[in-house]
């Protein structure tokens, strides 16, 4: 069989080339013969152009799709399966999606920024369309038929006479090992059968029946359970530890100490926890008081040295200001707070390290672990396995490094490490605290004449890359230094994400004060700076609407040109029953907010109704109505699930959450000291309206709703109480104090 296959392949490749020329002629290039450089293929095909990096078909017709992104509970594995099956014309069930693995999949960096649909979804869609075209071209050659006469259906190319060649018959070795072309012949969205349908998620059945669904559920032969004894505070030095006594405990396999890194491995999980406790009891640490004053955090932040950049400026001196207001908004450090503490399994065999991890970036994490272990990256393999939801950079990468460091000390044996609750809460890199200062004026017509926005923030990503980002590498004897922080560049931005207003103001200035010093360990948390910047902008828009005596929805529309933005605002207002001059029932308030995530991704508007108990100050979100435009919708129920989650999660951040600390230690170390939403405060209803944009690019959704939800709730509280709260979280105590003031 091999020989004819190889012969076929050359002819197919030639055919593929001819086919691609016809694409180009039919595409935009045909009209622009003098285009300066050839455009690159879309999405992550730019960086991983080979079609077989994304789609492989074997001789039996089995189709496997590969993504370098990590399923984190967003459900995109299902969405990718829909996209691939749609463009390939095969049954949804007949293909398998393999996620991030440094040996198998493309390097797509981090699964972050709501970029998975845009990067990987787009790559898979285009790769699938081009693979289908190659298969049709091969069928045309074999059947001696023009391609136009052939159609594809259910994994086969079909001729007008009914003759059927399956993809398995058509595919040849390396046939798909060709570079993607810039343009694909994508299906007409009007003909979609799978894209746009609420297909049931592929991962849920195992999750609701006790199947092995998470890295926490891995059990490899000979596996040991390890626990780490973390220092009690940042920078603490281990001065004394009786490891020998712990090593004699029943079931203990090994104590690993490397500088300030301390861990123990045991045959059984609970033995490892007992040994961890014993080890912690014998360890003596030298701690230093290095943490900032929590009750003066905004001044601490704005007092730190900063690198200042004016990131937006517009001027129209013809417009003159009449009334001016200013306000300062703050956000505390907040925790990702995954329900399952971080976990990883590692195994070191014959000089090769394999780590199963719920990291968001298998390739960058591999680089960090390889550097820490002083091994070549090629000898380290990282395989993504789902964990508990992470919502950004939580302890996942650190746990992966912990497992690798312990596994190196126990060659051959798989090592499973899971953090304890207190460790996740105290050591995860938090969402950074932020301060924004706003000042704006109205003109004589009640429209915004000028707008000044300043934001103070650390970076919003200290993700690996280098070993120095990981706790184990920071704590080992030959320690790696924490890398110098860098601001994330615009247009996506970090601390300045969504700092530039989407509204059109005649005069505007936006300044980003990037603070390199990080008094508390921080990194990426869902929506990054957009959470606080949108909270600030959209709260201040309401303050200005109040000053202008205008309806908040109407006031926003008066300042917004973007038609897709206007459409979601109108949709949310309509779904909510928003009326100009409306009055909420006693002790209730209505609020509205809007943003386009990163000013370049999905649009989201949220109207909310909040109830405030004037005696206790307790606020509860009663109902929320959202409208979302995320471009072409792949799985509407998945999209709704993401937005529902964004609203409810953001409500918890907004009403309850802040990391606490004293001079030395983080003191919010469990769910009692870091309270989050419980069922007594869950809304009565959350409604999500989708505006579908068939054929438009995928815009993602995971981080779209957090900012608007926060501001919508804050605006509703202001509407209910007549008091404006500007410091997150909007706790019962703060609301009560504002009411009583």
């Amino acid at each position, binding site marked *: 069989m091999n020989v004819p296959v190889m012969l076929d392949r050359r002819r197919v490749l030639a055919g593929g080339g001819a086919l691609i020329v016809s694409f180009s002629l039919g595409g935009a290039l045909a009209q622009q013969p003098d285009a300066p450089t050839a455009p690159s293929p879309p999405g992550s095909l730019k960086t991983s152009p080979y079609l077989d990096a994304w789609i492989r078909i074997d001789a039996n017709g089995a189709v496997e799709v590969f993504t370098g992104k990590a399923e*984190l*509970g967003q*459900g995109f594995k299902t969405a990718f399966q829909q996209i691939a099956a749609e463009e390939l014309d095969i049954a949804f069930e007949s293909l398998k999606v393999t996620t991030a693995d440094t040996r198998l999949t493309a390097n797509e960096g981090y699964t972050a920024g709501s970029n998975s649909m845009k990067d990987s979804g787009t790559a898979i869609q285009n790769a699938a369309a081009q693979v289908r075209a190659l298969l049709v071209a091969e069928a045309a050659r074999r059947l001696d038929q023009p391609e136009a006469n052939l159609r594809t259906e259910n994994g086969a190319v079909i001729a007008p006479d009914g003759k059927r060649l399956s993809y398995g018959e058509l595919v040849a070795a390396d046939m798909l090992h060709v570079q993607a072309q810039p343009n694909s012949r994508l299906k007409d969205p009007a003909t979609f059968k799978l894209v746009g349908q*609420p297909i*049931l*998620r592929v*991962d*849920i*059945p*195992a*999750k*609701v*029946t*006790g*199947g*092995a*669904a*998470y890295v*926490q*559920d891995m*059990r490899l032969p000979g596996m040991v*359970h390890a626990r780490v004894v973390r220092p009690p505070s940042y920078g603490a030095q281990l001065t004394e530890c009786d490891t020998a006594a712990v090593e004699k405990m029943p079931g203990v396999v090994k104590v690993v100490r490397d500088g300030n890194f301390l861990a123990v491995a045991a045959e*059984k*999980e*609970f033995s490892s*926890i007992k040994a961890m406790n014993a080890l912690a009891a014998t360890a003596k640490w030298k701690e230093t008081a290095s943490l900032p004053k929590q009750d003066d955090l905004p001044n601490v932040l704005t007092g730190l040295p900063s690198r200042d950049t004016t990131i937006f400026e517009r001027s129209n001196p013809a417009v003159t200001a009449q009334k001016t207001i200013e306000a300062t908004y703050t956000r505390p450090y907040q925790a990702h*707070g*995954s*329900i*399952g*503490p971080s976990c990883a399994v590692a195994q070191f065999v014959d000089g090769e390290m394999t780590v199963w991890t719920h990291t968001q970036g298998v390739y960058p994490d591999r680089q960090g672990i390889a550097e820490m272990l002083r091994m070549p990256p090629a000898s380290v393999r990282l395989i993504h396995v789902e*964990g*508990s*939801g992470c*919502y950004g950079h939580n302890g996942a990468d650190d746990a992966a490094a912990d497992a690798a460091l312990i596994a190196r000390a126990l060659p051959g044996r798989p090592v499973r490490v*899971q953090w*304890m*609750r207190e460790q996740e809460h105290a050591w995860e890199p938090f969402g950074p605290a932020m301060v924004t200062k706003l000042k704006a004026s109205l003109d004589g017509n009640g429209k915004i004449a000028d707008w000044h926005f300043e934001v103070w923030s650390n970076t919003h990503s200290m993700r690996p890359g280098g070993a120095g980002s990981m706790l184990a590498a920071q704590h080992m004897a030959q320690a790696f230094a924490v890398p110098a922080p860098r601001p994330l560049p615009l247009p996506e931005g970090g601390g300045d994400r969504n700092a530039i207003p989407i509204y059109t103001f005649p005069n505007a200035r936006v300044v980003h004060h990037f603070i390199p010093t990080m008094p508390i360990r921080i990194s990426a948390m869902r929506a990054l700076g957009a959470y606080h910047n949108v909270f600030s902008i959209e709260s201040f828009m309401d303050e200005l609407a109040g000053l202008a005596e205008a309806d908040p929805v109407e006031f926003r529309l008066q300042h917004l040109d973007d038609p897709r933005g206007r459409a979601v605002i109108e949709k949310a207002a309509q779904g909510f029953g928003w009326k100009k001059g409306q009055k909420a029932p006693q002790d209730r308030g209505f609020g509205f907010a809007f943003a386009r995530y990163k000013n370049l991704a999905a649009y989201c508007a949220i109207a909310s109704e909040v109830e405030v108990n004037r005696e206790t100050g307790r606020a509860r979100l009663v109902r929320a109505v959202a409208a979302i435009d995320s471009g072409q919708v792949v799985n509407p*129920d998945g999209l709704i*699930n*993401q937005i*529902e*989650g*964004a*609203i*409810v*999660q953001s*409500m*918890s951040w907004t009403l309850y959450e802040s990391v606490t600390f004293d001079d030395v230690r983080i003191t919010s170390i*469990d*769910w*009692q000291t870091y309270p*989050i*939403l*419980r*069922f*007594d405060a*869950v*809304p009565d*209803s959350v409604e999500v309206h989708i505006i579908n944009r068939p054929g438009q690019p995928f815009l993602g959704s995971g981080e779209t709703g957090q900012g608007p939800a926060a501001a919508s709730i804050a605006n509703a509280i202001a509407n209910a109480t007549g008091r404006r709260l500007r410091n997150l979280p909007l706790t019962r105590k703060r609301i009560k104090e504002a009411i009583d003031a």
Partner: protein
Amino acid sequence: MMTLKVNGRDHQVEAEADTPLLYVLRDDLKLNAAKFGCGLGQCGACTVIVDGKAVLSCVTPVVLLEGKQVTTLEGLGSVAAPAPIQRAFMEEQAAQCGYCIAGMMMRAQALLQKNSKPTDEQIRAELEPHLCRCGTHMRILRAVHRAARLMDTADASTTADRSAR
């Protein structure tokens, strides 16, 4: 060595008396559903049913369970033959990451076993010990309501079957 009855079967378990049930289920019996979330009884991810009651397995020493009936999510049904509560969570797509869901389902199951028609307030009150971080609460509530309806229908059909015989 002690005998532990889990999902209707007797298991001989060798565990120190103070070992929380969670580790015996996960480590010795290789069951996945009950999850380690906090080890402090604060989040509910480890919830299982013991003699009809929802119990936090991370803070329940295994020695207290001799002679009692332990049920985990695995004991209710499977992907091929899901129990009503499992069907309901699948049909409502009531999960994002899903890590908290098994615990939620077990408490809901215990509730539905003693109260087949709970009100929304009763469901919310019952689920109070449980945390979900993805914000899937609205769907979880819908799924529990759906499970109640499915169990009601299942009971009715069982009764019908019996009367036909």
